[in-house]
């Protein structure tokens, strides 16, 4: 018969198991009823099931809505190696040509990485790898089709139903795409220096990593915060939609920009210089219509043209040379020190002052100041400056915006140098007025010239017109803004008269003369000041002019750095023809009414009135 012992033992062990069950209930209560907030259980820990979705970056448009830069929706192709598992060879083979990747690279990507050589347990592998980023949508469609067509090799002895499930999982979930964007510049190199470029970077958000484009230079950098979208996130059954970034509308006109770049490219060929640049500005508003620099680069693949990255129009610091004389003479007129009819002795090309000789290119005798500008006499200008005095000259040069940044919304702008008078030597008073011992950027020069063209107001350069949302609603409008008045309208009109003479048969810039428009402008030829000496053989040739002279529509600067001396180095022979070529084409494009020879420029018409007689822009011309 049974003894008592077994029952006692049974009772003991049964009680032990019962106690364990009761303990389990207590443990569950601890886990489920949130008696404490610590431990791995918290709201934060649900975050990892969210995935961040990038917001689309805004576009950059020209003043007529032509797209200069945009973000094209693409796919980031990802894979789940834990699902791919047995089929990785077949998948690598069919996807490698589509993704343009090496089959072996792809294979190593999609092979499960954490492979436990499990003796019993579950195989835990990595379940997320990025195969390729920025895959075009049509390629992505090919990828999904290829996956759907994929012939499955039977991985062994599995029951049919589960095999089918696995295949479906493989086809539709093992390779998946997530939102991604490719920054695309449809016109290639057009306005590359204005636009800049982006680089794609991974940022860690609260909802996981997200890939976004960040501006590295140009407008892409300065407007990065406006352009950047707001990323959203997705969770099972909901989430927050990402928000598109704002569009930036520039004042640049893509057609004018193309004209300018076209002519600069021709100049590069013709003069084989180190570089050229040009800016076209609306004198009355300061709107930048075009800003170009060569050599250039393609922002679609910025790394391919490193030597072209430099935006010469705002960062080339050179001595402006003769173009600077307009500042000196304007101020003398303004101060009433002289009139254009007053004469000055130009000393036949050699003037001893301050212990050194000052030369003219061509020797002149006694000239009226009108001719001094027209012939670009160094001696005549220097004599005027001596009468003006260093303090006043320095003040005026600063007033015209030299020695400080114009504030154009682009990175890498140079300020230029104008030394304060206490650092001037005895010679300075004869050198500064003719554009030596100072340095300036082409942008500063063109803005100064625009001030004379528009009747005496220095404008701040305007590059961004407005910010819009994706629906075209204006978020921010940037109005034109004046910096200060630098000369009176009367003086400006006189200067324009003198500058018109410069662009005539008798002046230095006859090559800039246009067929049906009067041009006012000034040449500049500066020996480059390198390593403390004026090195012979290296010149910076420039021309700044505007047209039609009495109601100016466009003011253009052309700067040519180190032109080939065999072809020419003078501003009048090198830069002026480039100006002319650009100006003729812009005039045709803008349909400006000719003012020469029949139409006598309105003597009674003030430039301010001319501003109101704006020319209707021509319909958009397709530019190829």
């Amino acid at each position, binding site marked *: 018969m*049974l*003894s008592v*012992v*077994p*029952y006692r*033992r*049974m009772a003991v*062990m*049964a009680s032990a*198991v*019962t106690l*364990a*069950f*009761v303990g*389990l*209930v207590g*443990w*569950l*209560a601890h*886990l*489920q*009823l*949130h008696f404490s907030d610590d431990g*791995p*259980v918290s709201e934060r*820990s*649900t975050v*990892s*099931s969210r995935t961040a979705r990038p917001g689309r970056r805004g576009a950059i448009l020209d003043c007529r809505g032509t797209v200069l830069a945009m973000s094209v929706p693409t796919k980031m192709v990802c894979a789940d190696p834990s699902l791919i598992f047995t089929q990785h060879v077949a998948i690598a083979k069919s996807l490698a040509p589509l993704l343009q990747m090496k089959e072996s690279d792809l294979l190593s990507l999609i092979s499960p990485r*954490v492979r*436990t*050589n*499990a*003796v*019993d*347990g*579950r*195989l*835990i592998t990595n379940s997320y790898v990025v195969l390729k980023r920025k895959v075009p949508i049509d390629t992505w469609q090919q990828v999904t089709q290829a996956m759907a067509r994929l012939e499955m090799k039977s991985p*062994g*002895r*599995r*029951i*049919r*139903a589960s095999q089918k499930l696995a295949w479906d999982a493989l086809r539709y979930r093992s390779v998946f795409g997530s939102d991604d964007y490719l920054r695309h510049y449809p016109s290639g190199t057009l306005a590359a220096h204005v636009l800049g470029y982006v680089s794609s970077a991974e940022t860690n958000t609260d909802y996981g990593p997200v890939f976004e484009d960040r501006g590295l230079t140009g407008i892409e950098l300065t407007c990065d915060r406006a352009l950047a979208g707001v990323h959203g996130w997705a969770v*099972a*059954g909901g989430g927050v939609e990402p928000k598109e970034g704002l569009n930036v509308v520039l004042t640049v006109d893509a057609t004018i920009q193309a004209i300018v770049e076209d002519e600069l490219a021709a100049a590069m060929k013709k003069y084989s210089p180190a570089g050229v640049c040009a800016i076209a500005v609306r004198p009355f508003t300061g709107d930048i219509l075009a800003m170009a620099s060569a050599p250039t680069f393609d922002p679609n693949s910025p790394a391919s043209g490193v030597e072209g990255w430099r935006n010469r129009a705002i960062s080339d610091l050179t001595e402006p040379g003769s173009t600077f004389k307009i500042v000196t003479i304007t101020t003398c007129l303004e101060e009433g020190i002289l009139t254009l009819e007053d004469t000055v002795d130009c000393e036949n090309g050699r003037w001893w002052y301050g212990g050194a000789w000052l030369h003219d290119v061509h020797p002149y005798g006694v000239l009226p100041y009108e001719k001094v500008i027209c012939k670009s006499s160094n001696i005549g200008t220097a004599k005027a400056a001596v009468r003006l005095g260093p303090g006043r000259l320095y003040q005026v040069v600063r007033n015209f915006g030299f020695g400080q940044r114009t504030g154009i919304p682009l990175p890498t702008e140079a300020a230029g140098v104008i030394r304060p008078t206490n650092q001037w030597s005895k010679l300075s008073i004869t050198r500064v007025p003719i554009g030596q011992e100072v340095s300036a950027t082409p942008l500063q020069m063109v803005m100064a010239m625009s001030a004379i063209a528009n009747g005496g107001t220095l404008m701040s350069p305007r590059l961004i017109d407005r910010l819009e949302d994706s629906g075209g609603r204006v978020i921010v409008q940037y109005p034109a803004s004046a910096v200060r008045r630098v000369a009176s309208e009367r003086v400006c009109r006189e200067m324009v008269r003198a500058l018109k003479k410069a662009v005539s048969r008798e002046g230095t810039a006859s090559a800039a003369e246009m067929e049906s428009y009067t041009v006012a402008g000034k040449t500049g030829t500066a020996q480059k000041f390198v390593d403390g000496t004026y090195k012979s053989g290296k010149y910076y040739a420039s021309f700044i002019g505007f047209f039609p002279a009495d109601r100016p529509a466009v003011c253009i600067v052309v700067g040519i750095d180190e032109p080939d001396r065999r072809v020419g180095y003078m501003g009048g022979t090198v830069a002026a023809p480039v100006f002319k070529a650009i100006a003729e084409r812009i005039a045709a494009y803008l349909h400006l009414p000719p003012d020469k020879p029949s139409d006598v420029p309105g003597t009674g018409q003030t430039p301010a009135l001319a501003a109101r007689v704006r020319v209707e822009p021509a319909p958009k011309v397709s530019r190829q």
Partner: protein
Amino acid sequence: MIIAVLALLSLGLVMLYSVSPPHASMRFLSRQLVAGGLGMVGAVAMVVVGYRRLRYVSVVFYLLALVLLAAVLVVGVEVHGARRWFRFGGIQFQPSDFAKLALVLVLAHYCAHCQSLMRTFRRGLLYPGLIAAPVLVLVFREPDWGTAILLGCVTMVMLLVAGVRWGYVVIPAVIGGAVLGAMLAVNPVRSDRIYSWLHLEETRDGVGYQAWRAREALNRGSLLGVGLNQSREKALLPEHQTDFIFAIIAEEFGFVGSVVVVGLFLAFFLSGIVASWRAPDAFGMLLGTGISFLIGLQALINLMVVSGAAPNKGLALPFISYGGSNLAMMLLCTGVLVSIALAGSPGAIVQVGLAESEETATA
């Protein structure tokens, strides 16, 4: 005894309800129903036949189990790096499920046979040890450490109840535990699991992902749960329909639901013990104890794994987890228990019990 039957009935219902939400597709459910139906028929057959007759086939069963376990190592289907399954046509069969019953049967048979000699070393430890060892080793080789440990525990319990000296059981258990610990230390997969169990936060994106998601599910469940079929974790939790089904139950029905499940298992276990207590003969008592502990311990270990109180093993939750052979075997075991219970009860309850279990079969 009525408690036992009622618990069974409720568990059957919980099983049906709980299995359906994780799978929108009817495939899992229908297959589970087929297996359940087969198990029910088997259970009723067991009741009708009576547990005593099992004694005659116990040795045959045992040998058959050994053959199957050996065969599965050779021709079994490899899933997740382990050979545990046979495939016949469309049906998977896990021989270790069968082996559980067979081992319990043969041990009960042996112990009942050598009852008075159990206190001796040879009869009490060596022979039963030799009986149990091949099964344990073969299961261990699959590899299925969870089941092997479970069977080891059940063997110990049965031997103790059969009257073997404490020392004879405890000393081999300690030695076995030491060997197991040593093997754990040198096996990277197992030691990783132990590590992740102890350091859940660190490993939650890797080895500990499953356990971490399960804990997350429990947490989401709170007191009353998120509601039927509202589980979010079932999209994220691996093996949610099999080993980790309890996490989904706890998420959907909350603390209340999980207490009900735990309570039902406890009730089942206790009624099994009561049935064994009242069993008219030693074989019935031992068999009932073995089966009660087998199912009770398996449920306990599974629940502990899911709730993070024990490292990951790979044991299914009896009656509830998806898995045909397991369910069928568990029901068969239940049939045996009922049969034992009936044998130890007054005649009137025999009738009620029979009627009830037939009702269960048709449910």
